[in-house]
């Protein structure tokens, strides 16, 4: 019997190596797998490259991982937010590298990695600072920039429901990067609000089929707090 569900966050995260490239889902705190990120802090893994839309809010989740000094590089579209002071300080002190990627290119680079696309031409960013040094090409009279796929060792995502085959559904706009990150990592670990019996998810409504998911752990819906951050 195939069972991708794990009893605990720590068990689900077993084996994350130092130097790993980790995708972290979420847009701000919507869809942020905070408990998995807390688990990475507890695991002790360091020298990590994080691929995420933002660079942490307050001192929870990704911000806590940054604060713990475990992150060497962040690849994201929008690090600067009203409550991104942990990242801001580390960046300005030269303690974390930053690669800023236009949000749509970030999403498409992740999707490309998950889809086996070697690289693609995007019009976004042409002629800007963020395309400096990149190959360009005119196609049908329009300017494009060559963008490379973004692969990861691990994707940490948050979903609404999951089953033991790894099928997932999401909740509202918390879906954001979950489905594409799930495709782009060697190991995708999903924290879900609820694990359901096989067959309970309507196959017409499964958003991420289990082929893209290796591990599922239930983290019941609870208010986000600092309580379990080391």
């Amino acid at each position, binding site marked *: 019997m195939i069972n991708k569900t794990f009893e605990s966050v720590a068990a689900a995260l077993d084996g994350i190596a130092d130097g790993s490239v980790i995708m972290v889902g979420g847009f701000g705190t*919507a869809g942020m797998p905070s408990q998995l990120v807390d688990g990475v802090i507890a695991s002790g893994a360091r020298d990590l490259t994080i691929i995420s839309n933002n660079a942490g809010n307050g001192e929870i989740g990704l911000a806590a991982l940054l604060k713990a000094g475990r992150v060497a590089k962040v690849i994201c579209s929008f690090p600067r937010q009203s409550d991104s002071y942990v990242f801001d300080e580390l960046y300005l002190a030269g303690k974390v590298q930053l690669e800023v990627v236009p949000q*749509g290119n970030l999403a498409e680079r992740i999707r490309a990695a998950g889809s086996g696309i070697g690289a693609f031409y995007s019009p976004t960013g042409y002629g800007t600072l963020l395309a400096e040094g990149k190959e360009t090409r005119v196609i049908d009279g329009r300017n494009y920039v060559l963008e490379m796929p973004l692969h990861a060792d691990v994707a940490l995502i948050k979903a609404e429901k999951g089953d033991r085959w790894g099928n997932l559904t999401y909740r*509202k706009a918390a879906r*954001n990067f979950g489905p594409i990150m799930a495709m782009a990592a060697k190991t995708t670990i999903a924290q879900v609000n609820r694990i359901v019996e096989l067959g309970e998810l309507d196959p017409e409504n499964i958003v991420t089929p289990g082929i893209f998911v290796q591990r599922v752990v239930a983290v019941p819906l609870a208010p986000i707090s600092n309580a379990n951050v080391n």
Partner: protein
Amino acid sequence: MTVMKKLSRSEMAQRVADDILEGSYVNLGIGVPTLVANYLGDKEVFLHSENGVLGMGPSPAPGEEDDDLINAGKQHVTLLPGGAYFHHADSFSMMRGGHIDIAVLGAFQVSVSGDLANWHTGAEGSIPAVGGAMDLATGARQVFVMMDHLTKTGESKLVPQCTYPLTGIGCVTRIYTDLAILDVTAQGLKVREIVADISFEDLQTLSGVPLIR
């Protein structure tokens, strides 16, 4: 010197909203452009939010906020009946693929040829953060810019060439300021309407770039 009567931000939002046709798919950028949503009246306009929402509704009633339902500015929103959720690659396909009719964006500067600078001042010690700005600028079929005509220190935000880092080249189609509405044309910036109580000559002087009447 008399105080020039110019449009308030709400009045600017009203002018932009007046030019959005029913049935349009529209992305309202973070900040002032979000005000446009308040002036669409009874028109059915599909509001897109790049984090993965189409058919976005107004702010929720107090106590009805849902942390999983936010807009690109990370504010709580609602979903209209008929609205949909989707992942980020689909969301940006909507923009880059030319499916969004209009993006309304703020700006630091717009050049006479429609170059847009709105993401980064390039100042020492500032942390670059682009979000979806470049994708919207490049992907939407029309890009409306909504901005004050002048900076706080009185310099024109219409410029021969942007001095701030670019968001997109030649992407702006129309500009709504507190003084005028202008179209970006192959010949340069054409004034559609002066919305402040100033003459064309005054507007020309303040703008610092050649305007077409």
